[in-house]
């Protein structure tokens, strides 16, 4: 299957169906608890499968390199993003910092969809990329808060602080936890649960992306906070970051699939873990803006155009 044929796979078509239904203002909707349940399932699945693969392939220096690269990307990407959002986007410091944190972090669903399409195209990324993704989820938040300089912390008491909200964030814990479980049990222990966590994966992803299409398109319609400038940046940022990600992957010697996956991670923007922490730590920032950009523009862009783009780039640079 070539790079763009993937747009005609059921997974992507269900996403498009959801978006079209929302644009046509159909009342189609998936209960929120079902959507939450499916997202937990997808995270547990991808974590388990990554762990099983690493258990089979064994630990290596490559893994360490990829982890360091992922961390570095998550720490560094917010800085140029912040400057771009301040200048080109004309955002105030608080909002620019909040948005920058989202683009430094990652979108699990974008990654999952990317892995599916890369695997279908015969270039499955290495199993450890799941762990890299989990590592990339939260560092960007810290940089974002530093960029915002003075947080609103004084106004409302927050106990426990950032550690709990970031490192112990539910999705990080589930991803790393399942990864570890997969690593411990290995292929043999995974076999009896494979019908649920492997065979059913793609079908559930279809239904989840149907919901994501609905949510993204509805948010785009309700998004008063988005201007032409910020919407354009929400397309420009993933392209730049994704390219940086692929280049970094090529530089540290990853295979084509893994380099593309690193590009997908760098190019994606968080809309689950980061918004919750930012709402808590930078409550003055506008959720309509950061969710509008990451969820309503960047996410659909990545699912439809970004993933094939980063894949093509990786094929050109690393070779296919």
């Amino acid at each position, binding site marked *: 299957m070539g790079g763009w044929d993937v747009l005609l796979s059921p997974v992507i078509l269900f996403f498009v169906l959801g978006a079209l239904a929302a644009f046509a203002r159909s009342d189609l909707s998936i209960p*929120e*608890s079902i*959507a*939450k349940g499916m*997202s937990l399932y997808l995270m547990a699945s991808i974590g388990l499968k990554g762990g099983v693969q690493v258990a089979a392939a064994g630990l290596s220096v490559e893994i360490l390199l990829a982890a360091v690269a992922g961390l570095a990307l998550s720490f560094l990407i917010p800085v140029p993003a912040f400057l771009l959002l301040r200048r080109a986007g004309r955002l105030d410091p608080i909002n620019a910092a909040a948005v920058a944190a989202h683009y430094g972090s990652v979108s699990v669903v974008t990654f999952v969809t990317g892995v599916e399409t890369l695997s279908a195209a015969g270039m499955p990324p290495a199993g450890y990329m799941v762990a890299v993704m989990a590592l990339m989820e939260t560092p960007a938040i810290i940089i974002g808060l530093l960029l915002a300089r003075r947080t*609103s912390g004084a*106004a*409302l*008491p*927050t*106990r426990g602080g950032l550690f709990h909200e970031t490192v112990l964030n539910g999705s990080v814990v589930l991803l790393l936890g399942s990864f570890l479980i997969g690593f411990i049990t290995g292929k043999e222990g995974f076999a009896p649960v494979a019908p649920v966590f492997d065979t059913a994966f793609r079908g559930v992803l279809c239904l989840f992306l149907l*919901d*994501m299409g609905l*949510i993204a398109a*509805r948010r785009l319609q*309700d*998004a*008063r*906070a988005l201007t032409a400038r910020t919407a354009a940046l929400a397309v420009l940022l993933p392209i730049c970051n994704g390219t940086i990600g692929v280049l970094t992957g090529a530089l540290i010697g990853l295979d084509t699939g893994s380099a593309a996956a690193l590009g997908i991670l760098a190019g994606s923007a968080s*809309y*689950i873990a980061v*918004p*919750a*922490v*930012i*709402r*808590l730590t930078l*409550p*003055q920032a*506008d*959720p*309509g803006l950061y*969710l509008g950009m990451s*969820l309503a523009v960047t996410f659909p862009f990545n699912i439809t155009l970004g993933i094939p783009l980063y894949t093509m780039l990786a094929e050109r640079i690393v070779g296919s």
Partner: protein
Amino acid sequence: MTETVERRRIEVLVDAPLVKSVVRASEEAGIRGYTLLPTLGGAGAGGRWSDDQVSGAQSKVIFLTVTTEAKCDVLTDRLAPILESHGLVLFISPVDVVRAEKF
């Protein structure tokens, strides 16, 4: 007839990630008891929203507590300056309760 006394009923509409902070503010005002209620959606100056748990950052919860006028004032003073910046909505209404000592 059962004796009732008047108390204040405070409702704060708050984004899910900020609930813990409101709870802490109320504890600092000496309030021990509260109940959290779910919401489905709404609209305000910030536009329309409806609950999607996927990006839970904008799910809203109602923090409901019944307390004395004094503690109510403390909590209101505590929250008033940040209502705007944190997107909170706060309502106060009179309410009668049995078991005065409890509230």
